[in-house]
């Protein structure tokens, strides 16, 4: 055995490469004036259906597009494309989450400056997507009434990293004997103070409220960017 080992300090975030790509994406999104929202949830909790509605409703006024991640198939991209918005499927193969590089690659031939809203639908998974920053302005976590009330307690990290929580499939609440109060308490426990919305993409319940919230957040973010830019130029 040679000499005793030397300790070399590193102090680097393990995902520093992802974070660097995400930072570059965020800068690019801000300077292009596009508001980026990502959607995370377990598989089958209604991300695609809600997003299809949102893309359709936003389009008369706003220029919108979407990226959607799945391990396989282009089914979700086809569903979202029915809205008439540009949509691109990211097929991750065996990877259980999107990362910033996948988003960056998917956007290579797109001019995001021509968009007002870009949506990123993550792979259905309540664990892994939470570790990866995608450069988005807003992260929306969805949980459906059929999943029970304690999902947030079981998967706190993903709820903790989100900016808005949406309870989906509210039209099934009664049939699923969904305890709304308990679900809201679970979300609040892991992410105190988060905005919680209730929607049913099927009946349209709450969809308008979600849409208004997106528009409001986009305006607020644009105002912040303007202030940031004006202070930079001083």
């Amino acid at each position: 055995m040679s000499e005793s080992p030397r300790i070399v300090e590193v102090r680097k975030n393990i995902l520093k490469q992802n974070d660097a790509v995400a930072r570059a994406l965020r800068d690019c999104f801000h300077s292009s004036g596009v508001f980026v929202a990502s959607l995370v949830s377990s598989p089958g909790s209604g991300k695609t259906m809600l997003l299809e509605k949102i893309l359709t409703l936003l389009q008369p006024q706003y220029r919108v597009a979407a990226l959607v991640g799945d391990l396989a198939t282009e089914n979700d991209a086809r569903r979202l494309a029915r809205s008439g918005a540009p949509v691109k499927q990211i097929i991750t193969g065996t990877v259980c989450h999107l990362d910033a590089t996948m988003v960056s690659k998917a956007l290579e031939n797109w001019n995001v400056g021509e968009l007002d809203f870009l949506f990123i639908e993550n792979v259905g998974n309540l664990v892994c997507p939470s570790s990866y920053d995608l450069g988005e302005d807003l992260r929306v976590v969805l949980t459906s009434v059929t999943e029970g009330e304690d999902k947030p307690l079981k998967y706190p990290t993903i709820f903790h990293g989100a900016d808005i929580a949406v309870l989906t499939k509210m039209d099934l609440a009664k049939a699923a004997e969904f305890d709304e109060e308990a679900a809201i308490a679970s979300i609040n426990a892991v992410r105190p103070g988060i905005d919680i919305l209730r929607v049913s993409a099927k009946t349209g319940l709450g969809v308008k409220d979600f849409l208004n919230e997106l528009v409001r957040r986009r305006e607020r973010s644009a105002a912040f960017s303007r202030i940031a830019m004006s202070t930079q130029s001083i």
Partner: protein
Amino acid sequence: MHELSIALNLIDLANEEAQRHEGRVSALHVKLGRLSGVVQAALLSSFEVAAYGTPIEGARLVIEEVPTVIYCRECSAKRELEFMASLFCPVCGSSGTELLQGKEMELTSLEMQL
């Protein structure tokens, strides 16, 4: 199961440092927050697989778990949380809390034979 991607990132970082110092890595010291969403056992076994055939093969992965700590504005005090299910203050029950630590995912240091 994103521990394998994390292990691969870890190996890239360690390799970069090893090349810079022209040394061989014998151990990696990592800090993992309880709220990081990374499972220690899964990371340890992914690491072995990911290191196979690289200059890092055979190095030890030493994980230090970082507890979840919040600041309670009601109590004006730091509190360590035993369970990660709730970020409410365990003493006064207030929801007016801020997360101070628990999301760490950091390569802190390397042991190297130079």
